[in-house]
C-alpha cells in the first residue's frame, strides 16, 4: 500500500528521541521533508544529521515550545524553508509529576498550548496543502486512571477533546485531525528506562498489564501516526487511535 507520503512536508515537535524521533525517521523514509525541534541544540543537530541520511530535506531548530514567540518563529521558518506544510505532529510533552501547582501550568503550556498554537498557526498552510493532516499525540493516561492524579493525565485528555472539536471546525479546509494515544512505550533514554531503575514496582506492575508481556516501542507508534498523517487515511478524522499494546482494559465501542 502506498501511503502517498512522498514529497509531503512534515513538521514534528520534540523529535530527537523516542516516539517523535521514530516518527521523523519513518516519515523521512517514506519520502517526507522534515522540520523537527527539541530543546537541546546538540541533540537537534545530530538528529537532523541522522534523519537526513534518508535522503530528504531535514531541518531543525533548538526551541523551547513554552516560549510562544520563539516557537512561532521556528514554525514560520520551517514553513518557509520546507515551502509549505502538509503534516503537523505536535509531540512535545512536559511529562508527569506532582511536584507542585506549577506542573499544571507547565503541562498546560507545553502539552496543550503548544499544540493549539501550532495548529492555529499552521492551519492556513495545511489548507493550502489540500491533504492537510494533524496528528496530536495524547496518551492512554487520558483514557484510564494512571498512577496519580497528575496534570499530565488531565492535559492529555484535553488534547483529545480539542482534536475532535478541531477536526469538525477545519474539516472543510481538507485538514484532517486525529489523535494517537500511546500506552507506556519503552525506549533507550525514555521515561520507562529510568522508571525501571528508580521505581521497580511501578515498572513491574505496568509490564504485567501488557497482555503480550512487553512494552510497546516508538516504531510501533510511529507506524500508526504515519498512516493517520498520510493521504491513505483520508476517511479518518476526529478519531483517537489507541496504540497501547493492550495496556488499557476498557472496552472501546
Amino acid at each position, binding site marked *: 500500500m502506498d501511503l502517498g507520503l512522498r514529497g509531503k512536508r512534515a513538521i514534528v515537535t520534540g523529535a530527537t528521541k*523516542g516516539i517523535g524521533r521514530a516518527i521523523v525517521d519513518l516519515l523521512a523514509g517514506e519520502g517526507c521533508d522534515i522540520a523537527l525541534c527539541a530543546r537541546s541544540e546538540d541533540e537537534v543537530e545530530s538528529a537532523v544529521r541522522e534523519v537526513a541520511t534518508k535522503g530528504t530535506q531535514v531541518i531543525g531548530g533548538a526551541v523551547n515550545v513554552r516560549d510562544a514567540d520563539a516557537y512561532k518563529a521556528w514554525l514560520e521558518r520551517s514553513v518557509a524553508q520546507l515551502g509549505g506544510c502538509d503534516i503537523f505532529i505536535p509531540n512535545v510533552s512536559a*511529562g508527569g509529576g506532582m*511536584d507542585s501547582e506549577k506542573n499544571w501550568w507547565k503541562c498546560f503550556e507545553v502539552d496543550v498550548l503548544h499544540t493549539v498554537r501550532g495548529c492555529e498557526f499552521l492551519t492556513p498552510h495545511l489548507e493550502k496543502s489540500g491533504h492537510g493532516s494533524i496528528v496530536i499525540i495524547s496518551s492512554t493516561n487520558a483514557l484510564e486512571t494512571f498512577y496519580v492524579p497528575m496534570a499530565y493525565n488531565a492535559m492529555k485528555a484535553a488534547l483529545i477533546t480539542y482534536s475532535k472539536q478541531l477536526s469538525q471546525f477545519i474539516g472543510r479546509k481538507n485538514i484532517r485531525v486525529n489523535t494517537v494515544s500511546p500506552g507506556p512505550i519503552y525506549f533507550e533514554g525514555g521515561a520507562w528506562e529510568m522508571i525501571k531503575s528508580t521505581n521497580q514496582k511501578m515498572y513491574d506492575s505496568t509490564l504485567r498489564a501488557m497482555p503480550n508481556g512487553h512494552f510497546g516501542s516508538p516504531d510501533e507508534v510511529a507506524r500508526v501516526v504515519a498512516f493517520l498523517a498520510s493521504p491513505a487515511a483520508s476517511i479518518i478524522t476526529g478519531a483517537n487511535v489507541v496504540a497501547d499494546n493492550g495496556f488499557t482494559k476498557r472496552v472501546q465501542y
Partner: protein
Amino acid sequence: MTNDPKSDSLTELELQELKERSKAPNYRKVRRVPESDGPGTPTAKAPDPDLPTLIIPKERYTSADHMQREWQHMWTKVWLLGGLEADIPEPGDYIATEIGRESILLVRQIDGSVRAFFNVCLHRGNRLRPSGISSAETFKCQYHHWEYGIDGRFVRIPDLDTFPQGAPPCRGLRGLPCDTWGGFVWFSLDPNVEPLRTFLDPIPQHLDPYQVPKMVLTRDITVEWSCNWKASVDAFNESYHVQGIHPQLLYYLHDLDIQIDCYDRHNRYLIPFGTVSPRVRKPPSIPDPIKSIMKTAGMDPADYDEPLENLRRDVQAHKRRTGASMGKDYSQLNDDQLTDDYHYLIFPNVTLNVHADDLMLFRQRPHPTDPNQMFYDIWTFELLPDGAERPARPKHQHFQHGDKSIGLVLDQDAQNLPGVQEGMHSSGFEGLWIGSQELRIRHFHKVLDDYLEGRVGSAK
C-alpha cells in the same frame, strides 16, 4: 575443562574479549570546588596509599581465631563511639553500651564531664544496669545492693564488716578513658590509649564545619545482621556496588567520579549527588530521586527548565543564596558540601554519610562470640532550621534483619550481606578481589593489620 585453576585461565583472545565487554564507561569529570586544606573541610586530594593488590583472605571474616585477635589487638586498643552527649545532659544521666562481651557505663558527672566505667559490680560480677539510656542517682547492684556513686566510687557495701579482707582495694568501679567530640561520647578499653583528638585526627577538622551537635537525632535503630562487622563496613566504603544493588541511585549520584582520600587510620570519599551516573542514558525528565534533593533545598522541580547537567550547581547556588533565610547556616561549608555526600570511615567501625542538612551515622559492632553476626546501629540526624521546635527523641528500636524495613537503599544493602557472609565460607572462594574503586576497603584492612601486628596502638 579441568579442575586445575591454573590451566583454567583465559586465553589471550578470551581475555581481550572480556576486557572489551567489561570496560568502565567514559565520563566527563564533575565540577568540584577547588582543592583546599582549609579552613573548613579540606577538599584536597590525599595521595593514594601504595597498597599491594593481594587477595584479602576470607578468614578475616569467618574465623573465630581472627575475631579473637581483633579483640585482643584492635577493639581493646582504639577509641570507640559510645553514644550521644545530648542523651545525657544532666549529672547522673548515663548510657550503657556494649562492645564484644563488655558493657560500659558512660556517665555525666557533676562537673559536666563524662566518665566511663565497666558496667560490672566488683562483688560477684553482676551487670549493674541493662544496656540503654537512663538516669541514676547511684548505681546499686540488684544482687546484694553494693552501691556506687555516679563518679564510680563506693557509696555503700552492705555488711562490709562481714568481709574479713575488707573492701576491694580500689575506690570503686573500674574506669576507662572517656572523652567527647562532635556531640559524641567516646571511650577506650585501653587505659594507655592516646588522646582522643590524636586518634581521630584529621576527622574533627573535616566534620566540625557541619555543626553536628546542632543536629537532632531522628532515628535510633539497631539491627542484627547475619554477617561479619567488616562486611558491613566494606559495603559502605565503596561506590562500585551502586550499579549492582542500588539501580535507582544511578539516577541520583555519580558513582564513578569519586574522590577517595585515605588518611592515617581513617578515610573518606566524596560522592557528587544531584547528577546522573554515566552508566545510564540522560533521562527525559528530572529523576524522582534528584527531585527530592531539590525539594529539600526549597526548589520546585516543576519550575526548573534547565538541562539536567546544570542541576547540581544550581541547587548549590540556590542553597547558598537562600540558606540563611531558611534558617540554615551553611557559612562553614563549601558549595559541593551543599549537595554531595562526604562519606567518612572513623576507624574501626563508624561510617558517616555527612550532608549539609543531615547525617547518617552507622556503627558496626561485632557479635560477642560469632564472627558471622553483628550489630548494625543506625543513627540519623537532621539539621533543623533555627528556631524550629526540636522533636522528641526517637525511641531505640532493636530487631533482626528482615523484620522491618530500614528504607529502600539500606534494605538493598542489608538483603545482600547475609549472602556475602555465606559465600565467604565456600571452599570455592579464597578472599576479596579488590579494585581501585574499593581502595578504602584495602586501606581499612591495612589499618586493621597495623593493629593486629602491633604497629599501632599503645605498647602493652
